[in-house]
């Protein structure tokens, strides 16, 4: 289990310091797939990068804990963290081609991580590298080993990234919009690959996406993020049956109409600029349920009984003063 508690991240910009994550809580149950959804710019990528401790200045983790097997990753030294990254938690990215070094063949990094984390010698690392590429369903792995990123298609690059990420048998995989940049048919193949690898290896996955359809298909749990806060978290079935937060409901409504990357049509207005955060609940300027209180004070997370036998009574969280009013 990977647990994120009260994670706060700031960016120092020319126009002052902005808070990109406000005390984010996230639980990734072992062997399950958890979705993280929200509009562009709400902080999904920053969350994943902070968990990996990959943020670079001007980004800074200001507080919170990231617990992996009871160990707080935020307290580790950089050297200790290097033994966690790749070996216990891995990450794949939105732009697969840009994530591969253009002037090195695939084999360079693949054999490097195998030597580093699994102590394989040159020849064994090469053989294992080919096996991993084959497992990521790349045809002719022996040729892919020697290929450079520009010689591979986007889908093949993402398969290489998956092979790299899983090379050292991590238990947790953070997938940041792994299919957004790919063609639709390729998207499906990559999703199928991720699904089968997840089940086969019992991976704990965080799937960041805009695509609620994908969430419904792949995830067991889902967290909804808005302006650097988790506003709702629930088992997938419960969330789709009965979304509690007005923002989640807006997202659902917009899914019916617009494509996955478009602004949610079901929600008027747009996500606030981090420099000009509204007081109180950050969603209130766009919220159909907003009242005076919402502009004064942000709601605190509230645990709600699922009230839903299908979700085996699992608790869910919502962060809204008036969530009860809009729920049918």
């Amino acid at each position, binding site marked *: 289990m990977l647990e994120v508690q009260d994670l706060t991240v700031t960016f120092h910009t020319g126009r002052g310091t902005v808070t990109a994550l406000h005390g984010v809580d996230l639980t990734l149950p072992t062997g399950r797939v958890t979705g993280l959804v929200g509009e562009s710019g709400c902080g999904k990528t920053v969350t994943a*990068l902070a968990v*990996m401790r*990959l943020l*670079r200045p001007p980004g800074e983790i200001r507080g919170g804990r990231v617990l992996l097997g009871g160990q707080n990753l935020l307290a580790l030294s*950089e*050297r200790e963290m*290097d*033994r*966690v*990254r*790749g*070996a216990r938690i*891995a*990450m794949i*990215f939105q*732009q697969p081609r*840009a*994530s*591969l*070094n*253009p*002037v*090195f*063949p695939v084999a*360079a*990094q693949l054999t*490097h*991580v195998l030597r*580093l*984390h699994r102590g394989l010698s040159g020849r064994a690392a090469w053989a294992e590298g080919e096996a991993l590429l084959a497992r990521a369903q790349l045809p002719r792995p022996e040729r892919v080993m020697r290929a*450079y990123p*520009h010689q591979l298609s986007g889908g093949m690059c993402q398969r290489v*990234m998956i092979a*790299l*990420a899983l*090379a*050292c048998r991590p238990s947790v995989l953070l997938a940041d919009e792994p299919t957004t940049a790919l063609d639709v048919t390729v998207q499906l193949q990559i999703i199928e690959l991720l699904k089968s690898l997840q089940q086969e290896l019992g991976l704990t996955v965080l799937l960041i996406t805009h695509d609620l359809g994908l969430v419904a298909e792949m995830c067991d749990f889902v967290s909804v993020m808005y302006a650097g806060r988790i506003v709702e978290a629930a088992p997938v079935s419960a969330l789709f049956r009965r979304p509690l937060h007005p923002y989640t409901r807006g997202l659902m409504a917009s899914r019916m109409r617009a494509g996955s990357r478009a602004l949610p049509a079901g929600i008027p207005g747009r996500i606030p600029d981090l420099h000009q955060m509204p007081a109180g609940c950050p969603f209130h300027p766009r919220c159909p349920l907003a009242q005076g209180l919402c502009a004064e004070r942000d709601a605190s997370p509230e645990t709600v009984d699922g009230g839903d036998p299908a979700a085996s009574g699992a608790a869910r969280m919502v962060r809204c003063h008036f969530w009860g009013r809009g729920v049918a």
Partner: protein
Amino acid sequence: MTLVTFVLTRVLPGSPIDQIASPMSTPAQRHALMVHYGLDRPLWEQYATYILGIGRGDLGTSFTTSQPVARDLERFFPATLELTTAAIVIATVIGVPLGLCGAVRRGSWVDHLVRIVAVVGVALPIFWLSLVLIYLMFYRWHLLPAPIGRLSPRITPPRVITGLLLIDSLLGRDGVAFADAAGHLLLPVTVLAFAAVAPLARITRTSTLDVLSSPHVQATRALGIPWRSIVWKYAFRNAMLPVLTMLAIVYGFLLGGSVLVETLFAWPGLGRYAFNAISGNDYPAVQGFILYATLIYIAIFILVDVLYAVLDPRVQT
């Protein structure tokens, strides 16, 4: 290219006859000289003759040295090659690591040093720096031989093999000549290298910073590969690509700068030859020099292209 040079040299005021003919010569004598050198012919005819000559490797005869220009250039080339190559090597050895350290330790004292060097290197005129160094190192402290030429008159030059004194003296196992040649090289090379360090350090710093914040470096970090390996094994190679291009540009700039430095240090190279040729309206010599410089330029860019193809698999060869 040759046409532009050709026309330019003719259009500019002054005539080579002023140099050759004595001030006392009569108009008739001057005319005879014009006819002798073919300067009385129409311009297009002079140009055609010139181009045909180039085809045979004949660049004409210099008015000032009375030697075939091609032979002059060949004779003066090694001095310039030695000077500029030594300067670019030293500038690279200093500038690239400076830029790298500046980028890797961004905001540290090294980084500030890089930025100061970048500004000072651009701001200090070569001319001024040369005079200050000559004054201090030779006149004041007597640390170096007189800043005239490539060797002191009392030293026997090593047998010419490459034309580069440092190499020839090493090949001839002549320590005295080597030391003297190095002493003569030191100041002009320092001055030229000083001007070249700034752009090299700056481009290295910028391109390294770019690479270190690129998505593929982030992805490599996500694999647990330590930062040191990332910088030295992976990012270094990416960062060197723009530096390579800059090296070619800087080398061209040094060839230009050598005109001034060679004149200041009485360095018997192409730059001084060109300077004398221009001030003496020596058309064939100026044209020959520009042709030569262009060829050197092209050769350098071809060399850089080849290196690029070796370093960057995206370049198709």
